Structures are given as structure tokens and as C-alpha cells.
């Protein structure tokens, strides 16, 4: 139990550190920045407490908002995907998945990609909508959502494959 909690704490710390120090500086095409910290929420075991995940999702977004001097978009977006994650899991894998962890899952790659893609797409759409908060910037919101989703998706799939090999 203690080892489990320490693992989550370490994952949280690594996600924040890598995002702030490394991935926030990528700025592909001058505007695109991947949200690789989502790996922490996506890879959180399915059988662990959702209550705890909602708290962690909120804290993760809040810490990133503070570190990026942004206005709260990360907090709301990360909190929302932590809350809706069970529905996304059911939609992607069906009622019962073959494993409780994405890291040891043997389901078809398509299901895993659908789950990761949906989580990133919803997160990015909420993040950009809250950041711009103006309907006149719909094109910009959609452009940033799609490009950031694609970039984050590629990086998260690569991270997932690397982590799986290690296990």
C-alpha cells in the first residue's frame, strides 16, 4: 500500500517535472505544445480509487497552472478528464477490459489508441476553450486542439510502448 502510494507520488512528480522542464519548451510550428503529463492520468490503474484520481487530476492541473503562470485552464481540463475517465474506458474497451492497467494490457492496439486519443482530444479541447474563452477564436481553438492532440498522441504512444517493454 505504502509502496503503491509512493509510486503514484513519484509518477506525479515526474509528470510535472518533465512537462514543465522539457515538453513546455517544444513549441512545434510555433504554437504546439504536447501535454505529456496526461500519461499520469491515462496510465493510472483502472481498479484504483477514482475519488483519489479526481483529487490528483485537480492537483496536477493546478500545479501546472502555477508553474506556467496560466489562468486555470490546465486545472479544469485535467480535472474533467479525471472525472470522465471511467466512461471513456467503457467506451473504448467495452464493459470489461482484459487488464486493470494500461501498462500490462493485451487488448488490441486499436482499443488502447482509441482510449488514449479520446482522453487527449477531450483534454485539449477543454484546455484551449478555457484558455481562449472566446467564440471568435473557434478556428484557433480547433487548430490548436487538433495539432496538440496529434503531437501528444504520438508521444504518449511512444512512452507507453517504452514503458511496456520495460515491464
Amino acid at each position, binding site marked *: 500500500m505504502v509502496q503503491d502510494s509512493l509510486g503514484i507520488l513519484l509518477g506525479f512528480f515526474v509528470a510535472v517535472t518533465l512537462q514543465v522542464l522539457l515538453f513546455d519548451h517544444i513549441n512545434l510550428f510555433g504554437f*504546439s505544445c504536447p501535454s505529456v503529463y496526461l500519461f499520469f492520468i491515462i496510465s493510472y490503474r483502472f481498479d484504483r480509487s477514482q*475519488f483519489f484520481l*479526481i483529487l490528483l487530476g*485537480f492537483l496536477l492541473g493546478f500545479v501546472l497552472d502555477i*508553474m*506556467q503562470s496560466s489562468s*486555470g485552464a490546465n486545472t479544469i481540463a485535467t480535472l474533467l478528464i479525471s472525472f470522465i475517465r471511467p466512461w471513456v474506458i467503457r467506451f473504448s474497451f467495452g464493459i470489461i477490459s482484459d487488464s486493470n492497467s494500461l501498462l500490462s494490457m493485451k487488448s488490441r492496439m486499436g482499443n488502447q489508441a482509441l482510449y488514449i486519443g479520446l482522453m487527449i482530444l477531450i483534454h485539449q479541447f477543454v484546455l484551449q476553450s478555457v484558455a481562449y474563452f472566446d467564440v471568435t477564436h473557434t478556428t484557433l481553438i480547433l487548430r490548436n486542439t487538433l495539432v496538440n492532440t496529434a503531437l501528444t498522441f504520438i508521444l504518449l504512444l511512444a512512452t507507453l510502448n517504452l514503458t511496456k517493454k520495460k515491464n
Partner: protein
Amino acid sequence: MQWILNIIIQKRNLLLFLFLLGIGIVFSSYRSSYHQSKLQRFGIIISGGIFKSINNSKSYLSLTESNQSLLAENSTLHQELLQYKQAENLISESTNPELNNYLVRSATVVKNSYAKARNIIIIDKGTSDGILKDMSVVGPNGIIGIIKQTSAHFSSVISILYQDFSINAKIQGKGAFGSLSWEGYDPTRMVLSDVSIINTIAVGDTIETGGMSAYFPKGIPIGTIIDLETPTSGGYYNIEVALLNNLTDLKHVYIIENKKRSEFIDLQKKSEDGTR
């Protein structure tokens, strides 16, 4: 009573989500309030400290490049200074600090953002270095932004790449004034609006600060016109401006203190009160 507890236990995830969402929305909406200032000041101290350490290591690795850039900038400044002295014969007067309205301090950028809707830059100078809120910040080739918040050793700067922020600007050598703002698409482009079509302007003209506010001194270069549209209806040009400063690669900036800013603001306030 029991059923209320049952509902709370059953719906605890939803209740926690709604509670935290409320906090998140309040956190977002307090963007310009006391609470936000406190949180952001804390954020500046933390992220400023971390990014300063990283920046120290990074700048050590790029010392040669930085030195070359500083040397080039210094030589241009020296050349301009000499030209002014020669032209106006102000050698003795320019050494008298009382005659200078503006005081310039240099700072190093420890964190720079340019890919968001509202971009903030963090610099390594704060109140202990004499930096105060609302001072203007310029780079080697033109304006950068305005000091938003300060802590003892760091300050945050509202970048000109910040939606809802506009700057009074004019076309160099002409009397045409307008309002310069960022549309959020490209960190190298801005839009100059409210310039009347009665003015004759052309692609390639230089845009500089208009000096009609207490923030920026008059005549600091901003960019050049790269696209110009004369509307079929309405009396204002649509002007696209390419910035002279590369805001995606900032290392050193200069903070300008306008010594007569409070006098300017007092007079402006009195004038406004008088017209009511």
C-alpha cells in the same frame, strides 16, 4: 438523515468533481484580483527560481553566442549615441542624469512563453532591483511588454503577445496613429488597427511606439508593415505588422523606468476629472 449520507457516499465522485470544478472556475475568474496576484506571485517565485537555475546552465553553454549578440547591440548603441552627440552637440548635457526622464535597467529572461493566448515572460529582476509594476520592457530591437507583477527578485511581464492587450503605435515619420494588438496566430505578426485611410502609408513603413500612454517612451521601434488592405467600406486600413524583435528567442531585456510617469498619470487623471 441516513439517506442523505447514502447519497453523499454514492455520489462522492460527482460531488468532489463539482466542488473542485468550482474551485477551478474561481481560480480562473480571479485572474486580475488579489487572490490571483497572491497565487501568481507565489508561482513567479517558485518557477522563477527553478528556471533561473536552468537558464544559468543553458546560458553558460551559449556564452559565445550571447557575447556576440551583446557586442553587436553595444556597437550599434555606441554608434547611435555618437551620432546624436555629434548632431546636437549635447555632450555636456547628456552626462547630467537630471536631464534624463528614463532610467534603463537590464535583465535576463528566465522563462518565456509565446504559444499561448496570453503569454507571460519572467525576468530575474524584482523590487529589490528597483523594478515596479507597469514599467515598460524592451528588447534589442523593440518593445517586449509591461511589468505585471513583482516579487523581491523576479518579475512577470505581460508580453505584447497577449490577447486583450493593445499598444498605442504610430507610423514612423508620419502622423498616423493606431492601436497594435495580437490576434493569437503567429508570434512574429501583429495587427495595427484604427489607422484612418486619409493617411498615406505603404508596405515597408516602420511602426514605432506613439508615446500617447505613460508606458512606452515615444519612438521605440516595433515592426514593419508587411501587408496593407484598404477596405471597400469603413474608413480604416487593415495593417499586418512583422515584429522586429524575435519574441520566441529572448535572452536579455531592458526595463525602462519613466521618472515622470506618476506626474503624467496625475495630470491625465485631473484632466479626465475636469471634463466630467
